[in-house]
């Protein structure tokens, strides 16, 4: 029974760390894409 609590705690810790890191990574990628798209649109608008 004790092992269940230990497993739950370590799984929670690992998943929480991994989840947060992954979220930060995906958020960074999304922001970079958004900024790039915005800059491209601005460039096209200026060219036109």
């Amino acid at each position, binding site marked *: 029974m004790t092992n269940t*609590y*230990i497993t739950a*705690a370590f799984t929670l810790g690992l998943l929480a760390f991994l989840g947060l*890191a992954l979220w930060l990574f995906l958020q*960074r990628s999304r922001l970079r894409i958004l900024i790039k798209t915005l800059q491209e*649109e601005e460039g096209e608008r200026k060219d036109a």
Partner: protein
Amino acid sequence: MNLTKKDKKAFFLGAGVFAALVLVWTSAAWLVPAEAFQGEVYRILYIHVPSASCAFLCASLLFGFSIASLVKKSPQAQFGLWARASAEIGLFFTVLTLATGSLWGKPTWGTWWTWDARLTTTFVLALLYGAYLLLESSMPAGILRQKVCAVMGVLIFADVPIIYKSVTWWRTLHQPPTLNFAGSVPMDGPILRTLIFSLVLCVASCLWFVWQRSANLRLRLLFEDQSFRQWRGV
């Protein structure tokens, strides 16, 4: 995926810290000997104590950035972003502390939760972090938000010594601090060494999370600024 070289380097660094943490936690879960009084369940301490330390570290960072943003009164100040990132990561670690503490409390005390001084003051810390984030997102950017959030940041830090001393100021179910400043640590060598490794790696992860989150917040601000200028046709 659209990441710069700097982003990739930062994420490889984070992956390295995470891999080391997985190794330490694996050794904590299986290799380190059981504790004489608590048996196996004490192993949760390898996550619980470092998480609590990181929650306190975030409160200290928030305090430092709050004071800095009070001194430097610029609405676009970097300190505001760092303070927000510290509060977010602080909330993450406080919730992790409460959850792992609960998982330790059930087999040890026979209950998931009790309104003990240490538990209650830690719960208050989570509420304060949440209140800070609500306040920061509900106010328009400017000097007033900077001042109000800085005061809130200082208040959050004031809870840290109360949490730390709660087990000595009041009669509580929670045991006295595991790591104290008196110099006497009632722990065996392998247990203490593994705890210190876990603590160091969790602190490194915590600082990495704050760094990456503040970088994302800065990028979001840049995106919002650019899209607003584009919308206005500037």
